[in-house]
């Protein structure tokens, strides 16, 4: 019997590449052979560049229209910088989807607060799309987005739509005189979000320190750790629980995460070098 090889990628065709800012771009990918693809918001794929390497990238499209797949990638190193040079018509390898997902069903009938930093907006965009498509199922929905500078913001052309249906606030770490919005860390936006703490779920994605401080601030507002969800990141070589690289506490982030409750991750967000 030939076992299904979970390490073998499928081929995906680059249909479109859009630059979001100087180092971030979005790929639209169509499978060459695969007929269907199902995923949940928060899950990720392993994207492979011919001969160079394979990286974990969250899916950032609409999970109710899973194909073509949408991935927003920040060029930071060998593989992602090579991906930045991809053009329409190129073919890449892709395995997935992997990992746990955001609690979009559990959040129905509740207020939702989404707090993201930088590229952390990408893994939460499927949640935003889902909520927008089922807006009546949710209470007040706040989206708080922090970026380094106004020029670093991504998905700018969607802002108007979000503004209309969500309580959408942005902030940047630093800005030139031209910027008349808020400046500072994303936690400063929390007072603007309106929610009923006893009936709210929070979803946070960004650097670990950011997730930690946002969680603390939300606890001050009356949320308990079970109501807060975070997405964790570690080096990943396999995404299927074999390489050990993403091991954290009693979990493997690739298969038990990346989305966890803050209750599960609190301890590790407080410790250094774990």
């Amino acid at each position, binding site marked *: 019997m030939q076992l299904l090889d979970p390490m073998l990628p499928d081929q995906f065709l680059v249909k479109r590449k859009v630059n979001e800012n100087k180092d971030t771009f979005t790929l639209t990918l169509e499978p060459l052979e695969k007929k269907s693809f199902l995923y949940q918001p928060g899950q990720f794929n392993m994207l492979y560049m011919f001969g160079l390497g394979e990286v974990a990238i969250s899916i950032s499209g609409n999970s109710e229209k899973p194909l073509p797949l949408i991935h927003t990638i920040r060029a930071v190193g060998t593989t992602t910088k090579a991906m930045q040079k991809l053009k329409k018509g190129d073919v890449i390898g892709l395995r997935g989807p992997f990992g746990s997902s955001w609690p979009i069903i559990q959040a129905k009938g509740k207020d939702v607060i989404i707090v993201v930093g930088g590229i952390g907006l990408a893994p939460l965009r499927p949640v935003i799309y889902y909520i927008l498509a089922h807006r009546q199922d949710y209470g007040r929905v706040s989206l708080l987005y922090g970026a380094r500078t106004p020029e670093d913001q991504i998905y700018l052309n969607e802002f108007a739509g979000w503004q209309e249906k969500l309580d959408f606030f942005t902030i940047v770490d630093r800005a030139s005189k031209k910027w008349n919005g808020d400046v500072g860390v994303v936690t400063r936006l929390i007072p603007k979000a309106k929610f009923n703490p006893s009936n709210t779920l929070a979803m946070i994605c960004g650097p670990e320190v950011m997730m930690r401080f946002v969680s603390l601030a939300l606890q001050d507002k009356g949320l308990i750790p079970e109501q807060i969800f975070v997405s964790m990141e570690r080096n990943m070589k396999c995404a299927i629980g074999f390489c050990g*690289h993403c091991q954290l506490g009693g979990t493997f982030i690739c*298969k038990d995460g990346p989305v966890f409750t803050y209750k599960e991750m609190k301890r590790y967000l407080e410790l250094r070098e774990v």
Partner: protein
Amino acid sequence: MENNSLIILAESLQLIFDNLNSFGYQTIAPTISENTIVYDQITKISDLPIGYIDEQTGGHYRLKKHSKPTFFSYTVGANSWKKYLHPPKVRLWQIKRKAKAMEFVSEETQPPKLAFIGVRGCELAAISIQDRVFLKDKFVDPIYSTRRKDIFIVAINCARAVKTCFCTSMQTGPKVEEGFDLSLTEILDDKKHIFLVKVATEKGREILKNIPYKVATKEDENIAENIIKTTAQSIEKKLDTENIKELLYQNYENPSWDEVANRCLSCANCTMVCPTCFCTTVQDTTDLTGEIAERWRSWDSCFTSDFSYIHGGSVRVSTKSRYRQWLVHKLGAWLDQFGTSGCVGCGRCITWCPVGIDITEQVKTLRENNG
């Protein structure tokens, strides 16, 4: 009723090798290379380390001549059976670049049928732990699975332990309980040199075909049991496993990590010799024409800085954090992840640590500074 407990002459072990070979098995057994016990393919029992015993302590290993011509009186060396089931380096796949596509070719190797001869209690436990990791989780590793499928195992009850052994604490030895086709207990006295053979599977019984035997008597059984009991009693090293997961989870900031970090060289030896450590990394390469790319998988260690690298730097920069990662995972988090400890008490990491760091001592120190 067929008999499951037999006595064969020591030299009849050769017939077991021969039968295994004629059934198409490559016979892998202990032998000597560069003054240590290694596992390698042999077909003659004369290639076993006959008449040798080992001496092991923290950071020290020595093989020496024994007064008796026993076949299995040494214990484990740096090698483990892991190298056959979870190879140090394998190709996962190849791809060919086509005009507007890539052609992925999965690796369909037919690994040879292997027979492991001389597998000890701690090592059976280690194999069963890697079975748990690679075969009984959400995903199945096709490489491990194809290699594991046809393995024939001849286990051995240890008649001798060394100072680094602590299988009794981990409840993995010295008696072999399950996971083998045949087990042996070696009995050598003035009058005879024999093996008490236990038959655990039909495959095992088939391999014994045409080998002269007699049915073991109650007395033979008692002699064998006594050998195992004496070995167990000679083991001095202990690891107290009570509430060990809680102990480790609660002591991330225990000052004793600093002390061990001052000695640890972050050399990764402990993880390479450990029969349960399973971590790997991948290498992606292209050939000179740039038309064929390959992906290889090889053993990796949580003691390297690359292991925890994410954009911007390693998560675990200090030696302290890496040693802590290893120990907390091995003895604690494995229980959550796989329902078993990651340690079988073989002592390899103690012997092969160049500075003699002792996992059992580290747990003791943590307990003393618990809080």
